């Protein structure tokens, strides 16, 4: 027995634990088209719902006539706000402390707002009938420009808030004002700015964009009237929170509600919030006693479910003559649309925007954010980033470049000069965050060296001279970007959503034959949790990852958790997984010692087994221990091998990275060509390098989309312009450059395995690198800043403004 012992290295490989480029276990079903998404769910007798939506951005509803719609064969019901009032569901709470109409109650506040819900036997009948619901509107003056929201004569959007001077986040100054949020040392900052050698000021707008997941939002609600059980399948990034909210607003007891997130085709923040479609489907199922499905189409998704960004950031940054930053000030005008439905932790109405001092050691700073209502769709979600972190990162990275121009200093050099130094960690920023770990200089040096930064600048110099001589019509730009994220919300002491602390959880059961199932409170939307969490566990408990099933998304089976967004799965649920694994290991060690007839302390864990110290030939494998857990545990010990951990992180984690982009711009057409993009990410301990690379590729592609083309824009009547994939830029492989990825490893000191999270870094860091490159191409012509998206006509316009078009 135990004659041929595989080497430690061989056994490690066999586990496919942390650090292994393990293939994604999810892909087998996805690449065969065998995923199971909400729209794949078909239940007997299931009905379909479809919305009647407002064509107007701001209008009073004079009347709704359902008659013609109800006469369509197959139509079962048409719901309006009046039908929802008796059950108190015409309005619903938002995650941001506001309320939102489920169905238009007296007026509409944005184009595409839900006015009535038609339920029919099939989608065709529902869609036909929706066209026949007659709604009489009286148009009202439309407010589109957030800068005019707080004008004295601005139209009153939210009549329900009339006279309310106190909102969820403090005083309201105006009928269209939502909140003011302030952080930092105002007087100190003013003083630093006033006394500075050099001061740079800029309005940086981060346009309204949309996460645009490939799968739109939807749900199936099924009320079983016999046992009073509601089952709700849906595209939920936070199924447990949805269950709690559903219980609170429906008064169905929480144990009678089961929420299931099946496979989700991308979320990117778009599937965090609660949408009228969910409520209407639930109400319809309760009323009609059969399952009801609601699935958005693409236009509805782009028009009405949560947008992202729409931050207008006025910055001032000061420095000494030789380039030491002395102060930073930012005022944000935040356009929240008709309802405040941002998805942020309760105490953070502007998310973690105060990470906007970035990667720099800035002695004093001040931020204030004013949220306003406009006649646009609600939202303001974290589109592949932690709460408002991409906005913050874009802001500081553009401001540093603007400052570099003013100082006539190289933007990379200015960054190196101001980075927080390695020995300053843990570092407390001027705006109050404690950065856990970092080594920015090393990362930046590696990046600059890899791309031969000096040579790029020389090439650019030659290009500019050739351009001036008329030998080329192409300008070269080099974008340098560095970012620090704040992810893994978060410590319960300051992070909650609707009062629910933002811990997360993992429950593990080891089966007698040495395989296991782990269930988590998070939910993958494509991130590959089933692959990576099994790898964490494999390393922690010595069971091969291939023998560990990871399950998420069913509130009846998974432990309570706050879900997946803000790169929190690895920092929080990943930590819970490691901690639960350690509980398993501790119990297993006692069983092993008992079987080996030695003291607990005399055995040690080695890859996949417990070995008697000093007697390597005496050991029990984890598989042996697992079996023993079900028949021969030490006296007094409970049988079985299970553990659960609820992890409240002591701090956030702070991934960082250095990105460099090289772009060539055709000044005659505004066409841009990303010649090169280099991305160095430091996400602490790397669980699966292949998944990290995949996440970086995806995030960079979204960053490209945002920087170069994505925009949800409105005309002066509040009509959404271009809410289809014909106009909304979703890059294909053809538009996407080759990504070069790289890394350094600076583990998080407080995370059980040192991991920081990576899924969102490339979106956070990428946008500014692209934008900096475009701005840089024109820098020698006097440009300091031009607004995104850098689509053909805007780039051409910039060239024209600078006098270099033909």
């Amino acid at each position: 027995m135990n004659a041929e012992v595989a080497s430690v290295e061989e056994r490690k490989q066999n586990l496919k634990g942390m650090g292994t480029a393990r293939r994604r276990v999810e892909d087998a079903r996805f690449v065969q088209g065998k995923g199971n998404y909400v729209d794949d769910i078909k239940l007997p007798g299931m009905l379909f719902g479809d919305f009647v939506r407002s064509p107007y951005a701001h209008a009073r509803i004079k009347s709704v006539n359902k008659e013609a719609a109800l006469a369509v064969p197959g139509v079962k019901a048409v719901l309006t706000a009046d039908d929802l009032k008796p059950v108190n569901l015409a309005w619903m709470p938002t995650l941001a402390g506001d309320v939102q109409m489920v169905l238009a109650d007296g007026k509409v506040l944005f184009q595409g707002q839900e006015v009535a819900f038609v339920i029919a036997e099939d989608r065709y009948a529902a869609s036909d009938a929706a066209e026949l619901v007659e709604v009489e509107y009286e148009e009202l003056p439309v407010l589109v420009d957030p800068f005019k929201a707080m004008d004295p004569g601005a139209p009153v959007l939210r009549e329900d808030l009339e006279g309310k001077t106190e909102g969820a986040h403090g005083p309201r100054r105006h009928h269209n004002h939502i909140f003011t949020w302030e952080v930092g040392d105002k007087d100190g900052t003013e003083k630093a700015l006033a006394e500075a050698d050099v001061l740079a000021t800029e309005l940086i707008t981060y346009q309204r964009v949309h996460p645009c997941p490939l799968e739109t939002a939807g749900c199936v609600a099924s009320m079983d009237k016999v046992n009073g059980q509601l089952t709700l399948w849906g595209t939920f990034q936070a199924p447990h929170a949805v269950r709690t909210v559903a219980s609170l607003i429906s008064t169905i007891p929480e144990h009678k509600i089961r929420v299931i997130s099946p496979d989700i085709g991308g979320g990117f923040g778009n599937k965090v919030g609660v949408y009228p479609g969910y409520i209407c489907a639930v109400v319809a199922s309760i009323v009609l006693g059969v399952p009801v499905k609601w699935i958005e189409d693409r236009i509805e998704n782009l028009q009405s479910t949560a947008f992202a960004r729409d931050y207008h950031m006025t910055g001032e940054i000061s420095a000494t003559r030789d380039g030491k930053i002395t102060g930073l000030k930012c005022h944000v005008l935040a356009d929240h649309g008709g309802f405040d439905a941002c998805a942020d932790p309760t105490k953070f109405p502007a998310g973690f925007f105060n990470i906007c001092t970035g990667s720099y050691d800035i002695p004093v700073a001040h931020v204030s954010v004013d949220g306003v209502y406009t006649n646009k769709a609600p939202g303001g979600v974290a589109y592949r980033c932690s709460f408002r972190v991409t906005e913050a990162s874009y802001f500081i990275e553009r401001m540093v470049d603007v400052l570099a121009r003013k100082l006539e200093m190289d933007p990379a050099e200015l960054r190196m000069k101001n980075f927080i130094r390695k020995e300053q960690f843990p570092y407390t920023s001027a705006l109050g965050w404690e950065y856990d770990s970092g080594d920015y200089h090393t990362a930046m040096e590696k990046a600059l060296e890899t791309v031969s930064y000096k040579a790029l600048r020389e090439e650019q110099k030659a290009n500019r001279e050739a351009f001036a001589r008329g030998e080329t019509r192409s300008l070269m730009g080099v974008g340098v970007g560095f970012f620090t994220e704040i992810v893994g919300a978060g410590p319960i002491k300051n992070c909650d959503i609707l009062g629910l602390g933002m811990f997360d959880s993992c429950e593990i059961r080891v089966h007698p034959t040495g395989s296991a199932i782990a269930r988590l409170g998070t939910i993958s939307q494509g991130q590959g949790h089933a692959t990576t969490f099994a790898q964490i566990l494999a390393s922690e408990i010595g069971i091969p990852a291939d023998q560990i099933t990871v399950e998420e998304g069913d509130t009846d089976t998974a432990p309570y958790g706050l879900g997946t967004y803000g790169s929190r799965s690895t920092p929080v649920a990943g930590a819970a997984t490691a901690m639960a694994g350690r509980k398993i290991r501790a119990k297993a060690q006692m069983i092993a010692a008992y079987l080996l007839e030695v003291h607990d302390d005399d055995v040690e864990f080695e890859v996949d087994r417990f070995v008697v110290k000093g007697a390597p030939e005496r050991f029990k494998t984890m598989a042996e221990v697992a079996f023993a857990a079900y028949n021969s545990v030490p006296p007094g010990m409970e049988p079985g091998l299970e553990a659960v951990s609820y992890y409240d992180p002591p701090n956030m984690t702070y991934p960082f990275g250095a990105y460099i982009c090289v772009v060539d711009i055709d000044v005659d057409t505004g066409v841009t060509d990303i010649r090169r993009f280099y991305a160095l990410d430091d996400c602490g301990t790397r669980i699966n390098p292949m998944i990290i690379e995949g996440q970086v590729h995806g995030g960079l592609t979204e960053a490209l989309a945002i920087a170069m083309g994505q925009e949800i824009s409105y005309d002066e009547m509040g009509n959404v312009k271009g809410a289809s994939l014909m106009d909304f830029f979703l890059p294909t492989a053809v538009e996407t450059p080759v990504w070069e990825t790289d890394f350094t490893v600076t583990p998080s000191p407080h995370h059980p395995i040192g991991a920081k999270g990576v899924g969102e870094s490339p979106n956070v860091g990428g946008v500014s690198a692209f934008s900096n490159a475009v701005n840089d191409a024109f820098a020698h012509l006097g440009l300091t800043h031009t607004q995104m998206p850098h689509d053909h006509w805007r780039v051409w316009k910039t060239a024209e403004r600078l006098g270099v078009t033909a």
Partner: protein
Amino acid sequence: MIPGSFEYHRPDSVDGAVALLNEHGDEARLLAGGHSLIPMMKLRMAVPSHIVDLQAIESLHGISEEGGEIVIGALTTQHEVLASALLAGKCPILPEAAALIADPQVRYCGTIGGNVANGDPGNDMPAIMQALGATYRAVGPNGSRDIAARDYYEAAYFTALEENEVLTQIRIPTPAAGHGAAYEKQKRKIGDYATAAAAVILTMDGGRCSSASIALTNVAATPLYAEAAAAALVGTDLGEAAVDTAVRLAEEITEPTSDGRGPADFRTHVAGVMVRRAIARAQKNAG
């Protein structure tokens, strides 16, 4: 995104299709590849009660040359245009332009007949057909007639085709051997219609341009045959002054709308750039 209900017909002859069109009048629509019509039906911008699918009509397929004319059956897909050796040799601008239309999936279904028949100002083939001097053969209850591509387009989605006619063929005078052609299209991404595009076809004789035609895509409610611009090139050596004049004359006839691709002035400017680049490339291709 769900179309209204309709009745589906699948005739196996042109006469059968014409009869159905005659019977149902403006309630009927022909269906070819469906890649313009079905999106419009999903948006309920088109709500036909009768769909007459042309796919079963064998005679509408194929590319051939008949006595100095290239004849392309209306149901020929854009992919078939792209893959045709005949066209690659004798009329390379068509495969070149087909490759700039949408993406492979669309091109496997979308037909050249649907592309030119529809009257969508965004479609690429109509301007090229104007530049090539093509005619469209239309078959109706009273037989067939030929309509010049340059006379076919009246306004966005309004054409010279009668409600009860089927466009059966595109007939192109085989371009002179040694002609040079180019199609320059600026778009935002794969699958996008042109911000502006230009087709240029010319012949060179001893360093001088002996004939030229130019047409523009998506810078007006119809494709634009830029007759004056082309005339400015004929007889010149395509020097800077002649090209500048052609560009200016082409820009002058544009009437683009402002949309997600940019405001009207930008699209006019891009049309000029496309003309300039297409002239240069056509000149290079000639000989």
